């Protein structure tokens, strides 16, 4: 057991730092630092840079093009990227559908889809949820009927994150209505340009457009786009959810968030003194810091189990729960810190990256929208209530 | 709408103060302030004094010997007693079985039992819970079989507060095992001196002896000790629970508790510590909100409404507040919460404590107060009740 980095680890960290410094475009890092929303091109530029270096799919096994890093190296990589204000890697290709394809897909599918994910030339989105199927995902009703070499897909998906930027969508569809709920589901890859697909924006509480409804109207999908076996989609979905839950804790981002919060508290004043000297605000910061540390060490414990060959068990659910609560708490404290200047609403600054002058301090205008927006973290990826149900059943045996 | 007291109210308050000052021994009050436990006689002597004045059963209707006070007077009475540091009035006779008897009992039963309660010459305890029937009270199994003019009762009650002080116990017993659980239950009054009644102490986590197991072994109870019809016990029990829930919020005691907390903070040099100040202010405000909520319920009742299931919320918040006060006292005294000094807590002793006086009971109280979210229907059960009865879920 050892917390210290080896000289090799330190060399690796320096290498990552140098790479990020040389390859992360300044405008992107500035946006991330300022908490602005990124556009598709921002993500793509960064991910393609990583892709060229072979680092984008850093969690993949070597034989599928991963860099073969140790757990420590992954940890260092994620933390350096967050510290240096790199955008978060969009998980849909790299952490979700990629692993499903290399684990359950055919050789042809691997050859066809994995390179684009590794290089980030295509944008993927996730088509699971439906209006009637949120927490109860297995009740989904989007129907795929076999018609010769194709499936004909009808139905609607909702809450598709960044579906409006996507080239491909991976979907859970119902191929058999007579089987038990979980057994009639299949996993399909669908080109978003296929005729019959319509994407309609959903506007979020902060005024932003990040999720969509996706309608399928007689969409013809080649049978070759079915991953694994018909009717086994649920197994793949569960596999993927376990993967999703781990990264969703967003610890490196939260660490950066705490630092940003401290900077805000240094800049804000209360009775002429920096807010960071206010004992009650300090208490809150300290409390948050400790929560992040506890979560990070818990994740490190999980990673170290994985390093010696263990699989992430259902207990990782609580990383998701705590991670989301911490993300929320950071934004809540930011609102508290900026006070009245959380009130002005400047969507053009948020969304269009306009050059409009902020009304309050530069960090203030996005504090409230972020707070509103981040309420999503305890809802998506399996709501926190559902995560607790999972722990209660799978870990505690209740 | 008005929060102000009339001149009459103020005069009333002074009268209560004067009465309490004249009738409460300083040694008893001192126990309140130092957080020590009372003896049976501390309670009984004080209750007898109130009884002689006609104030013990202050919530009863006039025709059963209540003083006929309005809501404001009751409020003032409870607050003055708490401020002064009087022992709380034990609820088992006054707030529990008394109202059941005057509501559901026969004239004979009223004549026989109410005076003893009004004068506090008889001490009561409550025999509801059983080892297998806690939250799910209706599953209780203590069996009463009719034999001529008697019921023969067999079974076990548990968690019976002050059974070791009790002259009488009111029990829920199963008289018909074939009916639906709620319908086969009857309400019996049992003299604790009846042969076959055995009381065994349960020691609590702080070392206190408040609760007991009560074993009932072929206990013969005259049929005339049954309140209401055979099988109507559940109705009596529910009526009583609603009454119980209101007083259980213990707002006046919590107000005193916050005051005590401020004194401790001063003594511990914490009154200028901003975070501890915040914590005291926060609990102070929680008490204020609870008090106002209770006043709103009382004011509705004064206007003729009955306390609805939403009073469950008062019980939940009241217990959380009592616990929080105890927790903060523990936080305030620091390391001197650690020494365990039962001789100071439970016995009349002149020994001085290891730390400051206020530190002696701090931890024990914190541990002990965990009970408040468990008894009287756990907080989880209260929320179930609210969810069903108030929210319709």
């Amino acid at each position: 057991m050892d917390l210290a980095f080896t000289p090799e680890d330190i060399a690796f960290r320096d290498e990552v730092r140098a790479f990020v410094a040389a390859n992360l475009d300044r405008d992107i890092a500035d946006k991330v630092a300022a908490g602005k929303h990124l556009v598709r091109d921002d993500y793509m530029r960064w991910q393609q840079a990583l892709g060229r270096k072979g680092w984008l799919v850093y969690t993949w096994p070597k034989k599928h093009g991963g860099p073969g890093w140790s757990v420590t190296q992954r940890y260092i990589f994620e933390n350096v990227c967050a510290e240096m204000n790199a955008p978060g890697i969009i998980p849909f290709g790299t952490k979700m559908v990629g692993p499903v394809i290399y684990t359950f897909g055919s050789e042809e599918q691997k050859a066809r889809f994995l390179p684009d994910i590794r290089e980030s030339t295509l944008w993927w989105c996730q088509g699971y949820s439906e209006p009637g199927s949120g927490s109860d995902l297995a009740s989904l009703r989007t129907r795929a009927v076999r018609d010769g070499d194709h499936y004909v897909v009808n139905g609607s998906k909702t809450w598709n994150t960044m579906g409006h930027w996507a080239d491909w969508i991976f979907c859970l569809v119902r191929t058999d209505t007579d089987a038990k709920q979980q057994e009639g589901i299949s996993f399909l890859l669908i080109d978003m340009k296929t005729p019959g697909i319509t994407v309609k924006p959903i506007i979020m509480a902060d005024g932003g457009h990040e999720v969509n409804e996706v309608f399928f109207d007689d969409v013809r999908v080649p049978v070759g786009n079915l991953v694994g076996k018909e009717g086994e989609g649920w197994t793949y979905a569960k596999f993927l959810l376990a993967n999703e839950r781990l990264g969703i804790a967003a610890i490196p981002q939260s660490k950066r968030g705490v630092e940003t919060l401290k900077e805000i508290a240094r800049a804000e004043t209360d009775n002429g003194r920096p807010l960071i000297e206010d004992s009650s605000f300090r208490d809150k910061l300290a409390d948050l810091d400790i929560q992040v540390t506890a979560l990070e060490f818990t994740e490190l414990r999980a990673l170290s189990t994985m390093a010696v060959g263990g699989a992430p068990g259902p207990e990782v659910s609580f990383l998701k729960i705590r991670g989301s609560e911490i993300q929320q708490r950071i934004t809540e404290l930011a609102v508290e810190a900026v006070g009245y200047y959380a009130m002005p609403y400047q969507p053009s600054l948020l969304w269009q990256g306009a050059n409009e002058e902020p009304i309050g301090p530069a960090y203030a205008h996005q504090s409230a929208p972020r707070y509103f927006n981040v309420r999503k973290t305890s809802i998506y990826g399996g709501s926190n209530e559902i995560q607790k149900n999972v722990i209660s059943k799978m870990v505690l045996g209740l | 709408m008005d929060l102000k007291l009339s001149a009459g109210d103020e005069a009333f308050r002074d009268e209560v103060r004067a009465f309490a000052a004249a009738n409460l021994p300083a040694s008893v009050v001192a126990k309140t302030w130092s957080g020590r436990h009372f003896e049976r006689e501390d309670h009984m002597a004080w209750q007898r004094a109130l009884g002689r004045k006609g104030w013990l059963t202050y919530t009863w209707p006039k025709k059963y010997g209540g003083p006929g006070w309005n809501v404001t007077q009751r409020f003032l009475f409870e607050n003055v007693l708490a401020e002064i540091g009087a022992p709380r009035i034990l609820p088992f006779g006054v707030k529990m079985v008394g109202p059941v008897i005057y509501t559901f009992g026969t004239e004979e039963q009223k004549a026989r039992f109410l005076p003893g309660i009004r004068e506090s010459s008889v001490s009561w305890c409550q025999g509801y819970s059983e080892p297998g029937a806690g939250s799910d009270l209706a599953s209780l199994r203590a069996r009463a079989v009719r034999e001529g003019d008697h019921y023969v009762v067999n079974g076990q009650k548990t968690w019976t507060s002050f059974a070791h002080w009790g002259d009488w116990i009111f029990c829920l017993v199963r008289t018909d095992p074939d009916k639906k659980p709620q319908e086969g239950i009857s309400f019996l009054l049992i003299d604790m001196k009846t042969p076959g009644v055995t009381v065994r102490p349960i020691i609590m986590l702080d070392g206190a002896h408040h609760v007991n197991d009560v074993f009932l072994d072929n206990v013969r109870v005259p049929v005339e000790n049954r309140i209401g019809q055979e099988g109507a016990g559940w109705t009596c029990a529910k009526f009583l629970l609603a009454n119980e829930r209101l007083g259980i919020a213990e707002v006046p005691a919590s107000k005193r508790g916050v005051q005590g907390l401020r004194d401790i903070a001063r003594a511990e040099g914490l009154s200028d510590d901003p975070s501890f100040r915040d914590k005291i202010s926060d609990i102070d405000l929680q008490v204020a909100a609870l008090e106002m909520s209770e006043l709103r319920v009382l004011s509705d009742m004064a206007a003729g409404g009955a306390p609805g299931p939403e009073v469950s919320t008062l019980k939940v918040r009241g217990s959380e507040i009592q616990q929080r006060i105890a927790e903060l006292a523990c936080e305030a005294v620091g390391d001197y919460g650690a020494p365990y000094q039962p001789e100071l807590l439970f016995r009349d002793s002149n020994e001085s404590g290891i730390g400051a006086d206020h530190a002696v009971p701090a931890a024990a109280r914190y541990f002990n107060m965990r009970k408040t979210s468990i008894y009287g229907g756990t907080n989880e059960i209260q929320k179930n009740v609210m969810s069903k009865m108030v929210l319709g879920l």
Partner: protein
Amino acid sequence: MDLSYSDEQKQIKEGVERFVREEYAFETRRKIAATPRGWLPGNWAKFAELGWLGMAFSEEDGGFGGGAVETSIIMEAFGSGLVLEPYLPTVLLGGGALALGGSKAQKDALLAPMIEGKKQFAFAYVEKQSRYNLADVAVTARKDGAGYVLDGHKGVVYNAASADQIFVTARTAGGQRDGKGVTLFVVDADAAGLSRRDYPTQDSLRASELTFRNVKVGADAVIGTLDEGASLVERVVDRAIVGICAEAVGCMDAVNKATLEYIKTRKQFGVAIGKFQVLQHRMVDCFTNAQEARSMTLMASLKIDDPDVDTSRKAASGAKVQIGKSGKFVGQSAVQMHGGMGVTDELSVSHYFKRLTMIDTMFGSQQHHLTRYGNISMAA
């Protein structure tokens, strides 16, 4: 002691509730928010006609002799419909300042027409550095002949774009954070040298940044006593706090109702999600939080005019702490129990949540008022 509404109060309550029901359906509100002003003059005229603008002012001042309880009744109903009309800046703040500090002439000139619906106000008391300290005032008012010249910046001034008059705190003596030396002025919104930057707020209201450059006012622009404006503003704000607490209570009740309805109808796993005990208990906690908020607001409305200033200060701060705490819990829980729908713009939930969040900041956060409350009660 009596906590029931009088018949007149019940009538007011019914009237405002009816207005909200009939004129403030959520989609209507969305349209009102999108108009250039952000509120409807027609509604304002209705408020005047129904006497709501003068409700809390004495008959002497041209009002109807009500008080904080009546104000709370109105604000609570407004909260339930997220009403956008600028009642708070105009009636509670501007009107409040006139009632507490205005001279007879000022009341005649400003308060009477306000009550008739002919004047709107804004109240400029925030500065970039001031946070919640009402005496942290850097805007200066320099003596100039009989009058004064104002210079400096005020921030987040609600309703400034629609206001006829702006009430503004300025320093006439002392250092930047001295309690003494702050004076409250009333300035015409179109005064030369006064410029505005207008914007919407998170919760669909309108506010502005105001810059004063050599703005000249006469001696009659002083409200109350020269140099003693800080305590006047504190009293005005404390009374306004009771008003927004009542508004928050209205928000909480409405959003709780919507959430309860949602969890009774939304089905997952073949049952209404309200059958799951975690949601049931959370809903109960929401209900409890709203009840406590109501209790504290009621208490504040009954104590806010107490002659003992510490009593009224504690009442305002106490209610504000409770509102902050309850509002956060209820708002966050409502969103959570709605699942994805809770974070959309489409349903009213997120709009209640946003308003409750802004109310927590307005006039001082939960933390600010907790500290203020502690300072008073530990001193006692």
